[in-house]
């Protein structure tokens, strides 16, 4: 059996590892931490702004500029990845590649995204809806007045507005503290007795016909928690993802990890991958910085899914030199000046578009040729998108991972 090493366990790494294991490869997944999925919103963005708001993401994918990752990935690549994702976590992601949802955020903006968790869908609001945003007094990362205030003054993508009001409930997720994290609440909401108590506190405060917005902490393990709560309240409810720690992201992370383990992926985490050996144009092995002696992992093919600047895969030193920190790969976009501009609201910083260039098989390119025949990149490391502003990171990650995996499987 051929061995493939995947480095990085964010969305790209986990999708690649699952896909490779499903295709019969012996997969070792190396990661420093547990991946960045729980830092994100727990939905799958494909393309949200170009910079106008996108209603049909797949259609928008076909129109990106040359140099954007989607230009190499293509619409078919995205479609394949989205259906594979839904297969991997069938109870967690739903949606239509041809229609974005527009879901309220924790500051009350309407955020376009493609696949969302079932517990979030009632947030795709119709004009004239009445929304009640429910804060939890002991959860500081969700401020209902801010959400409701901004939601109420926002014009919906199809025109019209909603009305929104804020209320607070002092639900005690854990005795003895009033600064509970989202995770503490999620664990509490997994308990049917807590849900029942919460519903009893909240129900009298709701008006007829209101849609209930809640922070995305309604259960971590129990996939029916939101449905159960909605039934008890007699109102539709929806969850709004929070900044880290994002329970919605954590759900996705746990589900994809469990799936990978079940598929036989060998996971080695906790240590950074810091070096490699190559034979001509092929990577032979990578090395992990175990102490006091490094450990070597040989493989026939490698998928580099280490992320971007946020993950330390790309780094800029104090002299302004940008590097890819593991293989020293050639970078695209690092020559632009300025890489960082001084106006916070003046558009995305060019530095965050820096990354590696790839061919349609996701092989990393230098001077138009693959740098190493058996090295592919997936995810945020790929240059050319402003993924946070345009809401494209997840689609790029999943699709590049699937393409990288499929082309490896074809070769092995």
């Amino acid at each position: 059996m051929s061995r493939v090493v995947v480095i990085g366990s964010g969305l790209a790494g986990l999708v690649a590892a699952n896909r490779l294991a499903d295709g019969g490869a012996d997969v070792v997944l190396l990661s420093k931490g547990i991946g960045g999925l729980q830092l994100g919103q727990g939905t799958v963005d494909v393309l949200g702004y170009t910079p106008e708001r996108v209603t049909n993401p797949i259609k928008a994918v076909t129109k990106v500029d040359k140099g954007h990752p989607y230009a190499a990935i293509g619409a078919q690549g995205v479609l394949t990845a989205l259906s594979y994702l839904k297969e991997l976590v069938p109870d967690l992601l739903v949606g239509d590649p041809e229609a974005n949802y527009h879901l309220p955020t924790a500051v009350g903006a309407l955020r376009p995204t493609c696949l969302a968790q079932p517990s979030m869908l009632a947030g795709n609001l119709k004009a004239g809806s009445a929304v009640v945003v429910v804060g939890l007094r002991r959860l500081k990362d969700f401020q209902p007045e801010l959400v409701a205030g901004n939601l109420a003054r926002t014009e919906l993508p199809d025109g019209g507005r909603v009305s929104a009001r804020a209320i607070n409930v002092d639900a005690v997720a854990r005795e003895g503290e009033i600064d509970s994290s989202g995770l503490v609440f999620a664990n509490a909401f997994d308990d049917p007795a807590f849900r029942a108590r919460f519903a009893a506190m909240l129900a009298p405060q709701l008006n007829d016909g209101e849609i209930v917005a809640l922070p995305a902490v309604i259960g971590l393990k129990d996939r029916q928690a939101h449905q159960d709560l909605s039934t008890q309240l007699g109102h539709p409810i929806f969850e709004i993802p929070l900044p880290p720690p994002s329970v919605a992201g954590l759900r996705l992370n746990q589900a994809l990890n469990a799936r990978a383990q079940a598929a036989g992926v060998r996971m080695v985490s906790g240590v950074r991958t810091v070096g490699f050996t190559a034979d001509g144009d092929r990577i032979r092995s990578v090395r992990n910085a175990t102490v006091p002696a490094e450990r070597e992992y040989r493989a026939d093919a490698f998928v580099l899914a280490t992320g971007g600047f946020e993950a330390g895969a790309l780094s800029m030193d104090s002299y302004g030199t940008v590097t890819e920190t593991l293989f020293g790969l050639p970078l695209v976009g690092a020559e632009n000046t300025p890489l960082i501009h001084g106006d916070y609201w003046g558009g995305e910083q060019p530095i965050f578009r820096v990354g590696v260039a790839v061919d349609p098989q996701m092989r990393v390119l230098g001077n138009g040729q693959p740098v190493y025949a058996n090295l592919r990149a997936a995810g945020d490391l790929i240059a050319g998108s402003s993924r946070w502003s345009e809401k494209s990171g997840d689609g790029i990650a999943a699709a590049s991972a699937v393409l990288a995996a499929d082309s490896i499987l074809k070769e092995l």
Partner: protein
Amino acid sequence: MRKLAVDVVVIGGGSTGAGVVRDVAMRGYSTVLLERADLGQGTTGRFHGLLHSGGRYVVSDPLSATECAQENAILSRIQAGAVEMTGGYFVTGPDDDPSFADKFLAGAAATGVPAQEIPVAEALRNEPRLNRGIKRAIEVLDGTVDGWQLVWGAANSARHYGAQILTYHKVTKIDTVDGHVAAVHCTDLKNGEDVVIETGFVLNCAGPWAGQIAAMAGAHPVDVIPGRGIMVAMSHRLVNRVVNRCIYPADGDILVPVHTVSIIGTTDVKVDDPDNLAIEANEVQQMFDAGEVLVPGFRKARALHAWAGARPLIKDNRVAATDTRHMSRGMAVIDHTTRDGLDGMLTIGGGKLTTYRLMAEHIVDAMCEKLGEKRVCRTADEDMPVEGAGPNYVVTHRLHDREHDRLDDQIICECELMSRKMFTDALAEQPKGTFDDLRRQLRLGMGPCQGGFCSMRATGIALASEHIDIERATELLRLFLKNRWIGLWPILHGEQLRQTALDNWIFAGTLDIEHLPAAESEVVL
């Protein structure tokens, strides 16, 4: 239009103005302080936090050295809570001239600045991150001081003595009658209201802006030469004592542990406009290089934030106008009677934060003399009401406080351990304040994440407090992020760039903050 009448109007809400208004009030005059922004928003808040032992000046400026040593002792007592008695070292770097240390020791003895040479090994044991190649080490009584706490402390003390402190009041005009100051006009920037204050005396403490103020009263131009200095805060204390290079004063010769950070400073470049201070890339690089000399690996340590301040130096013909560092740091009081035929106004310039109390004493003495009154200065004798009452500041204090209230209150700014109550209390005191105003008192958003996690929480809490509406809340958040960025982008690299990537992920990505609706009409913040 509002009308007031006071004995003395003090213009400028930096350390000098705050010290002066306190002194004036303590001597029994009715007085008002006018500040166009928030207290300590100018030069006072934009320095490196050093409370001089005097060591820096023992060779170059002996008079300043003695004054610093005396004022250091006074401030450590009367404003104990704003001062951390860190102690300091003067170290001879590997390539520095070791004989300067001899001049230093001689100068210290002559000026009364306590200093003693210690074995290099002892210095390295106490400060393990210091360059192992240092050749000599001299221990001094440097401390660090929070400039904002210092100013607020003085202002609160002044209030206690009946002074009014009017922040966000911009002076627009100074009336004179028969060659004597008669009234000061200003605008309340928060509501656009004009305020006229009848007065017999104006003390111009506007620092780098003092020339602009003097001109309003029709005085001849006062040549204030703003000297720009940049500072870079590193994300934690690389040293726990102030570390100075034992050389003739130069750029980047000091590393100061203030609160949870350490600050390297500074440069000195003559500028024309104190309201437009750039943080130049080459100066940032210069600071990093200077840091490497003191603490090897400095360039790989995490830089958090940079800022620039303008020194308010009065022109002195003894040195070239382009070299502001070697101008007198001693204070200069300009008497507009002899100079311009204008009675009832004094302008003060020069000096340094460590001697702010003494400067105030001098200018108020000068005023009393002109008024022909003998009122004695008592500012050195009395502790400030809040921060003077307790022990000196220690860096562990918030950790200690949170250990006791952590389960009963929420921590809103986790980097700087600011609790919800601290925030709501400050907001109730200053309901019209911006988040930057609150930041200066609370350190909100001043830690490693630079507002990434706390600013959304703070916005929501402020909104829920009902002091502000949704449009103002949203605009305050936007302004706060914009202002944090001003000090972030010039130093961005390494770990701080990584933090910024995560912060952008949260704000632009998860929260989609770029697509919040705009305010229907301009919101005055």
